[in-house]
């Protein structure tokens, strides 16, 4: 595939998303077909990098347990305080119990997004399979949690008592549909943002090989890259705060 790219002007913005075996020489073997679930792929590698970065930041960064924190420790503390405050503000005191899980989601998405911005890297969170899994874990987790904690009372969420009686069945149908749509929007938003940003970045980078428009393309790529750094952080935050909002339905007292 690389040989073909060198033969002429060709931009393959989607090639960066191809899942392939990690220990594989593309010249001699087929690295992309028939991948088994247990095989080490570039997905495995970049997820491992994500885990390593998180451990480096949150565990090694805080190993001094310093009252006056080192730089790395203060970054970890900042993230901790930020997510903790978000969980507490959005879900209330009851939701704090589920803070470790939300912190896991936030850190995984944040660092997967940021690592994906390294040149030549692979963005695990640009894959629908990954984001759908994340969103479904949240969806089923919260639905089960709500049913366990509130029993059938959880379903009262769909029965809007403040509306006129005649409208309630209609509203209940709409509410159920919107509830079922949550994991879809939750996951597609994340994957779509990252996929589009990385593809655009790749297109700009491809145009940089044409001498005439090279300056425009390079400046454009730099601008898009800056935007993507913002998007990487904002999408991690959006995913987290939406998870908190959904969690509030399951653990909070008030419902809409």
């Amino acid at each position: 595939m690389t040989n073909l790219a060198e033969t002429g002007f060709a931009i393959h913005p989607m090639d960066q998303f191809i899942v392939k075996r990690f220990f594989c020489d593309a010249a001699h073997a087929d690295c992309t077909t028939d991948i088994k679930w247990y095989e080490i792929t570039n997905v495995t590698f970049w997820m491992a990098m994500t885990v390593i970065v998180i451990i480096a930041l949150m565990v090694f960064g805080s190993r001094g347990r310093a009252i006056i924190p080192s730089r790395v420790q203060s970054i970890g503390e900042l993230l901790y305080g930020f997510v903790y405050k978000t969980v507490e503000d959005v879900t209330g005191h009851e939701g704090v119990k589920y803070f470790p899980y939300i912190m896991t989601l936030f850190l995984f998405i944040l660092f997967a997004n940021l690592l994906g911005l390294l040149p030549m890297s692979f963005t695990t969170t640009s894959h629908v399979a990954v984001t759908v899994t994340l969103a479904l874990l949240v969806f089923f987790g919260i639905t089960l949690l709500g049913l366990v904690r509130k029993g059938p009372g959880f379903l009262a969420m769909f029965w809007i008592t403040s509306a006129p009686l005649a409208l309630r069945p209609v509203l209940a149908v709409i509410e159920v549909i919107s509830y079922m749509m949550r994991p879809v929007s939750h996951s597609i938003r994340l994957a779509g943002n990252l996929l589009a940003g990385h593809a655009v970045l790749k297109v700009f980078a491809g145009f940089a090989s044409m001498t005439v428009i090279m300056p425009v393309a390079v400046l454009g790529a730099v601008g898009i890259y800056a935007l993507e750094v913002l998007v990487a952080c904002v999408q991690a935050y959006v995913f987290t705060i939406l998870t908190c909002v959904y969690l509030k339905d399951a653990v909070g007292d008030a419902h809409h």
Partner: protein
Amino acid sequence: MATEAHDAAGAAGQSVGMPQLDVSTWQNQIFWLVVALVVIYFVLRLVALPRIGAVLADRSSTITNDLAAAEELKQKALAAEKAYNAALDKARADAAAIVAAAKAEIQADLDKATAKADAEIAAKVAESESRIGEIRAGALESVTEVAKDTAKELVAALGGKADARSITAAVTAKLKG
């Protein structure tokens, strides 16, 4: 042409345009995602979050204690300032008293010295006056004497016979007049 080549390569490598929609890789991705999430969750749950939470709690209690200590020290400083001001006021009052006492003592000494000087001056004046009186008396006596002698000589020169007693009486009468 390049696009056709890419399509051919894509057909060889994988069947769909978007790698995201290649369902054959999903099980691999989902498996490793779950592994990663479980690892992150347990690392955070068991090590990182309790540790960072404890550090943050420690810090806030340290800050609270330090603020309390600072408040206490501030109160102490205020008390010390008050004591200092009181001591300063007392010292000022003492100094004023000492100054007044010294002034009174000096005044007394001065008065005594003045009185002594006055007395001495008075004594000197009295002495001088007596001496002046003496001199004046002496001078008057001399004048009488000279007048008597002169009168006697004048009487003698005019050919009269001087009667000492009458001349004396005449001179004395003239001098008085």
